[in-house]
């Protein structure tokens, strides 16, 4: 009975709540919102909207990290996908084909990464570093060094339109998060990904297609990066190959770590990674509305991240365990996704 209650009181939610509270103290209008033309406006919506690109990256990154990998190329893949979308839509290609092409290019980038990792056996950090460096160059080649702007209302809608009163990126993020979570949790895919992250060799011996799975996971990360890239381009109505997604791979990795997935692979949670991305964005938005001089941006961010990670550390978890009233095992094994446990499976 205490279990579902406790699972809501995860440190990530506490951190998010604290940062939102801090924002509210610094900027009293933080929680206020208004509706105009059937669309909701407000700082909270901004957090969700601006957090969407990183959250979408984090969805793919979570799966990669669960396999004990990492994908440094997602920022560059964003640039490539944005460049492809902007150039094609500028040439008058129908939107559907443009989107398929941009997402397809993202998938292709992911397949490339996955092949380097799974077939050639390169270390993920090195394998994806290749595309991280080369990818931006590819994007610049596509845009010929310009910011390629466009006016296609369909494409712009993906970045700054609204559905159900919410900005489109939020809808896309939520849809992707729900779909990805469902696919990983309702099928055995999540278990397989974890299994590879925990012990790739043993997984192969158990009959898993480790290579194919790894390639698939990187392809998924590429797909997410492309989605994010399309949104980012649509947001500014142009593909800025030099700047779009710059350093966002690091934000995405941070989001995954804040969300509680270990860089050592294994247990993962896509929803919590999304929460991690929102925590990061809440900090960014907070800094923007608070009126701090920009020289302090990075300091404030670093300080907050340290606090969050300390709060989530195993040590803090143990302290929490002793302070908290209910008797449960300390979170040395991260929250199990199972709810049904047999009689002897429960805590002793």
């Amino acid at each position, binding site marked *: 009975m205490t279990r579902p209650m406790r699972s809501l009181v995860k440190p990530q939610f506490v951190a998010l709540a604290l940062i939102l509270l801090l924002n509210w103290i610094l900027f009293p209008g933080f929680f206020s919102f208004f509706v105009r033309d059937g669309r909701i406006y407000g700082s909270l919506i901004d957090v969700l909207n601006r957090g969407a690109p990183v959250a979408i990256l984090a969805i793919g990154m979570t799966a990669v990290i669960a396999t004990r990998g990492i994908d440094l190329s997602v920022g560059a893949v964003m640039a490539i996908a944005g460049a492809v979308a902007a150039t094609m839509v500028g040439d008058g290609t129908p939107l559907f084909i443009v989107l398929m092409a941009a997402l397809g290019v993202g998938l292709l980038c992911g397949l490339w990464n996955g092949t380097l990792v799974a077939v050639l056996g390169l270390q993920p950090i090195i394998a994806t570093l290749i595309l991280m460096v080369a990818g931006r160059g590819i994007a610049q080649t596509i845009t010929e060094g310009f910011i390629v702007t466009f006016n296609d209302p369909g494409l712009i809608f993906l970045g700054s339109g609204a559905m159900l009163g919410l900005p489109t990126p939020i809808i896309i993020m939520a849809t992707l998060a729900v779909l990805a979570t469902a696919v990983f949790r309702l099928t*055995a895919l999540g278990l397989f990904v974890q299994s590879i992250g925990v012990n790739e060799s043993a997984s192969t011996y158990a009959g898993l297609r480790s290579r194919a799975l790894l390639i698939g996971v990187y392809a998924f990360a590429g797909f997410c990066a492309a989605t994010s890239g399309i949104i980012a381009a649509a947001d500014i109505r142009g593909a800025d190959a030099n700047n779009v997604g710059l350093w966002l791979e690091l934000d995405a990795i941070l989001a995954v770590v804040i969300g509680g997935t270990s860089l050592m692979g294994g247990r993962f949670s896509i929803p919590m990674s999304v929460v991690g991305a929102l925590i990061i964005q809440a900090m960014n938005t907070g800094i923007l509305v608070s009126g701090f001089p920009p020289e302090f941006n990075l300091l404030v961010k670093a300080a907050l991240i340290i606090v969050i990670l300390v709060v989530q550390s195993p040590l803090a978890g143990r302290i929490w365990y002793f302070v908290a009233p209910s008797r449960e095992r300390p979170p040395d094994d991260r929250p199990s996704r199972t709810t049904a*446990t047999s009689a002897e499976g429960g805590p002793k």
Partner: protein
Amino acid sequence: MAEPLLSAAHIDKSFLDNKVLDDVSMDLLPGEVHALLGENGAGKSTLIKILTGAYTHDSGTILLEGRPVHPRDTKHAQEMGVGTVYQEVNLLPNMTVAENLYIGRQPRRFGLVDSRKMERDAHQLLARYQLDIDVGAQLDTYSVAVQQIIAIARAVDISGKVLILDEPTASLDQHEVDVLFAILGRLKADGMAIVFITHFLDQVYEIADRVTVLRNGKRVGSHPIQDLDRMELVKMMLGQALEHDEAMRIGKARQAGELYASFRNYALSGKAAPFDLDLHKGEIVGVAGLLGSGRTEMARLLFGIDRPDSGELTVAGQKARLREPRDAVALGFAFAPEDRKIDGILGDLTVRENIMIALQARQGWTRPLSQKAQVEMADHFVKALDIRTTGIEQPVKFLSGGNQQKVVLARWLATNPRLLILDEPTRGIDVGAHAEIIRMINALCDQGMSLFVISSELDEIVAYSSRVLVLRDRAISGELRGAEITQGAIMEMIAAQHEVQPL
């Protein structure tokens, strides 16, 4: 009797709830070779690790030259005079021989390593072992035997009182063993106390002065070697000789069923010479051979982990190909590998997940097993195999070695395999689980499964095998059937090469 150089008295040691040493005592006299014997899991290595400071004991005392000592770590123990050489030589393969001998204590001149002096010293040191080699060459350019001697030279040079050798002869040929024993003889004459762990009884009778036998974490006894004949010694080690006899009779009386899998002309260059292998239902094929004889390599081929250069496979009358383990699983093969931690268990995942993973992998990711089915399956195997766990949701990394092995077995039994390949199924597991696993091997065979079992434990192989394949030099060198299967016959076949080799 002389004063003991090192004596351990009433040592207790537990890991969590598992008592691995129970009131164990042992005396080492100066100038003796003391054989420490026992089956795998008897507590030999735990005792050694306590003596050398790698583990701390829960209770009991260790006296060195009559004074109580508390080795903090292996370095501390070395400095006090207790040095160890492990089976897998733990030197640095990519450094020179001289550097390996003097690492951490290099002679210095003007604050810099004086490599000329170091090489001169190294040369002199090794000369005492009749080893005249280029000490400036990289260690791994020399054979394991030479490396072993270098490791001994280092340990003796640092410690000088007590030398502990953990299965030093496991990968040496007869000539190399002779050289080693000559060295041990000299060290003995110098007054050192030498602890010698081995599985080769012949060697015990050749070199040891006294033996201490451990079984099940307890000391069975310590005797001068001349007071014990082989039969008595084996009985001390096995204890349950009767049980084994019974199992042995089962193994030999068993009638093999119809042909299940047939490997023809299977080969992988550098790993396995071309071999033919027929596996029948209801048959246990035991595989014996020294380390490096190609046992594991053969198992990997059979399970599709490595692809053969050539060869054909027929399973139940159908031609088949193994490209990856997945294909083998699809054919009804299962494989519990030698190195459980690296290739077997999924440490962070739960007992339940570890058990269901192979079956789930075979079903594919789109058809997940229901939560209910998973729990039922896990509960069933936890009960059936008596897996000691706090629950099926406990991460498997917290289980003991024997229970982890059972989880790996459960994983495969859940797939209802027709061929089960076991590589060292009883290595590094406690005595209780050991016997259970052997019982299980027999039971599975009786149910008509085909088993291919690799083991270094000859008594075990003798106990359950319907047939025994002896491997050496990456080829099947002989086969024993029925009444031919004895430890002696197997050892003879393994040893045969040494007599053949020189000519």
